């Protein structure tokens, strides 16, 4: 056994007894030098309190000569005059708040912004409609008076512009909300639906349906295929990344990368088989656009998006707890596995809805929750619905820009969001990192 306590005794023995300790003298140097008192020491091999260790071989030898009246020896104790109670520290029961914009203010601001953007967006374009006319027509349709526009104006407003704006708002809301959910789910502010392969999985279905010329569901074919393949992708990712009844984030993300690669290959394969017309369509679809918006398309997306958006806030509180980590969240009563599964499904629903009609639009799901978190704090009870609202605002604004910036041509929406989004995101990254000193 290497634990023989008497090992140092031999060397210590020489000067041990010579030390005049325990004189009761109160100087500190004495106390510091004094070895432990024999009287109260317990040596190895003597399991219980030993009042007077008699065995010569143990390290008592190196300590003071035996004294029985130990407590006096310690009159030298260097204890500060201990008050009965510790001094009360300054408390701050008032709980000062951080400088965060209240969620209510932000919500109102976002709603107003969305309303204004909608009105501006439906009125502007190649066929300009004055704001008053837009309002008149809206009121008229709502049965609140007003007056209809002329035939062309009415058609442009109601059959072209409005479905486009509504679709943009739905897609943006879905993407923003999905981003907020994903970031909360992975505890990583840089997560987004593309990371675990949902976007590309949905894209595979959409590309396949275009390339193969499928039309079994009419207008809904692309959406349905995208949704089906997106959901299948999520389930595959989820099953593959589970081990031992739980999912590790790293495994999930790595699986997502592999799935992304596989989906990319499949898309390439379908492109290879597609004819020229389909190729063009796919290419523009992949760039992301709302140009083909019609009411049936809106209806095709509406169920998915609406269900996802209504379900999402239910998980807000549990997402907050998940920020503490998986185990602490479980300690606080969150069934983490079930939460993760539910979130994956909701995210799939939202992402597939967005991808099916508008192609791959990046950075909305990344940027919007990030900005809102900086403004209003990371609490998901605001962040999840707020990101939906913010996503709608961003996408409606982006679409308005895409339509009008280089008129009469039209920029692809996905290109625009990525062009503006990525540098902005780089800037955010650096800024936030500097301020927080890291991400965790």
């Amino acid at each position, binding site marked *: 056994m290497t634990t023989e306590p008497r090992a140092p005794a031999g060397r210590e023995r020489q000067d041990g007894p010579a030390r005049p300790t325990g004189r009761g003298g109160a100087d500190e140097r004495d106390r510091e030098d004094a070895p432990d008192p024999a009287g109260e020491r317990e040596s190895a091999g003597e399991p219980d309190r030993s009042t007077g260790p008699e065995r010569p071989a143990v390290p008592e030898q190196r300590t003071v000569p035996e004294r029985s009246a130990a407590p006096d020896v310690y009159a030298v104790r260097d204890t500060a005059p201990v008050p009965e109670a510790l001094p009360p520290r300054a408390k701050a029961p008032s*709980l000062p708040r951080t400088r965060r914009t209240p969620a209510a203010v932000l919500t109102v601001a976002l709603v107003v912004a969305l309303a204004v953007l909608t009105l501006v967006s439906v009125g502007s374009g190649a066929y300009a409609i004055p704001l008053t006319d837009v309002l008149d027509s809206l009121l008229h349709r709502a049965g609140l008076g007003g007056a209809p526009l002329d035939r062309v104006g009415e058609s442009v407003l109601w059959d072209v512009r409005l479905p486009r704006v509504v679709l943009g708002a739905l897609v943006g809301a879905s993407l923003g909300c999905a981003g907020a959910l994903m970031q909360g789910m992975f505890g990583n502010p840089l997560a987004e639906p593309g990371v675990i392969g949902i976007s590309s999985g949905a894209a595979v279905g959409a590309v396949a349906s275009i390339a193969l010329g499928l039309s079994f569901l009419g207008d809904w074919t692309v959406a349905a295929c995208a949704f089906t393949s997106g959901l299948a992708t999520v389930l595959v990712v989820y099953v593959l990344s589970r081990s031992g009844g739980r999912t590790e984030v790293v495994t999930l993300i790595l699986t997502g990368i592999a799935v992304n690669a596989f989906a990319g290959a499949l898309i390439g394969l379908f492109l290879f088989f597609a004819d020229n017309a389909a190729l063009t369509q796919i290419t523009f679809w992949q760039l992301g656009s709302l140009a083909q918006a019609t009411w049936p398309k809106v209806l095709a997306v509406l169920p998915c998006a609406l269900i996802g958006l209504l379900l999402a806030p*239910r998980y807000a509180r549990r997402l*907050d707890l998940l920020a503490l980590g998986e185990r602490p969240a479980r300690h606080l009563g969150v069934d983490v596995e079930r939460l993760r599964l539910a979130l994956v499904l909701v995210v799939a629903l939202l992402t597939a809805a967005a991808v099916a009609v508008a192609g791959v639009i990046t950075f909305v799901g990344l940027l919007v929750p990030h900005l809102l978190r900086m403004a209003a*704090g990371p609490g998901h009870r605001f962040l999840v619905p707020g990101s939906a609202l913010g996503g709608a605002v961003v996408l409606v604004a982006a679409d308005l820009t895409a339509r009008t910036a280089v008129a009469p041509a039209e920029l692809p929406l996905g290109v625009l969001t990525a062009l503006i989004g990525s540098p902005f995101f780089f800037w955010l990254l650096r800024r936030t990192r500097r301020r927080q000193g890291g991400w*965790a």
Partner: protein
Amino acid sequence: MNGQQGHHGHRGQDQHGPHGPRARGRQPYGKRVRGRPPVRDGAPDGPGADAGTGTGGPRPRRTRWLPSVRAWARQGAAPPEPPVAARAGSTVASAHGLTVRHGDRTVLHGVELSLAAGELLALVGPNGAGKSTLLAALAGDLAPDAGEARLGDRRCLDWPAPELALRRAVLPQSAELAFPFTVEEVVRMGRAPWAGTDAEDEDAEAVAEAMADTEVGEFAGRPFSSLSGGERARVALARVLAQRAPVLLLDEPTAALDLRHQELVLRLCRERAAEGTAVAVVLHDLGLAAAYADRAAVLDGGRVALDGPPDEVFTAEALSRIYQQPVEVVRHPRTAARLVLPVRDRRDG
């Protein structure tokens, strides 16, 4: 401990109220009045024990606005059943023949351990002895390969997560946070398990008390990510204390703390234990364990090598063997508490 009164003026505020008729048949654990443990002062136990709810009559339930919307936004599920207070001294958590393997390494070998209400148990032992694993098993975090960990009248794994959260609180070894929540928000998360129960009413009080107890009030509004390691550890502890669960499992709560706060934390544990909470603490400082714990379980290589009051089990011989380091055990001259020190050479010159 008297000096703590200044911190806790709100404690015992209800002492003068007549005990009102029971509003509900069952005593919601969270309703107890801190500082006057229902299990000690009142009738010994049983649902009829009326100690601890002297709130001057039954408090009216808070009016629920738009109940359906609230339920929807919450979880949709009925609130979990709160636990009944356990009698002091009765076993509330235990391990029976608990064996846990990580890969082909057996981390715990048939561990037998019990934890009683009102008891402060220190789990000590060398690195890798299985202390944290034992705590995790008691917390219901992992499935044992053999044997079982029980909490209350069920196996830990049989409790649904929401119910488990009302029955035990766990402090993990390291406190992490993915997003920059403020300190106050983090502590408030400890109240999440009580959402929807009657005890939800005491959320604010529990949070304020936990923050005052752990002295984190002064940075309540700061983001958790901006705190130092020791401050984070205290905030995490405050969150766990705010949970007010009848079983507290703390994994090295003092690891990152300065002297003052180490004492503070152990004093808090003592206080909680005196109120009837069962507290298990993983400690490395054997002196702290000896000074504060009612009982110490010394783990060695996945087995409970020693189990008993620190005064009995902290012997130089046994500790030297277990830690493979010669130690000497001396008694503090004033308090007579055991001090465990490594045998060191004297520094000459």
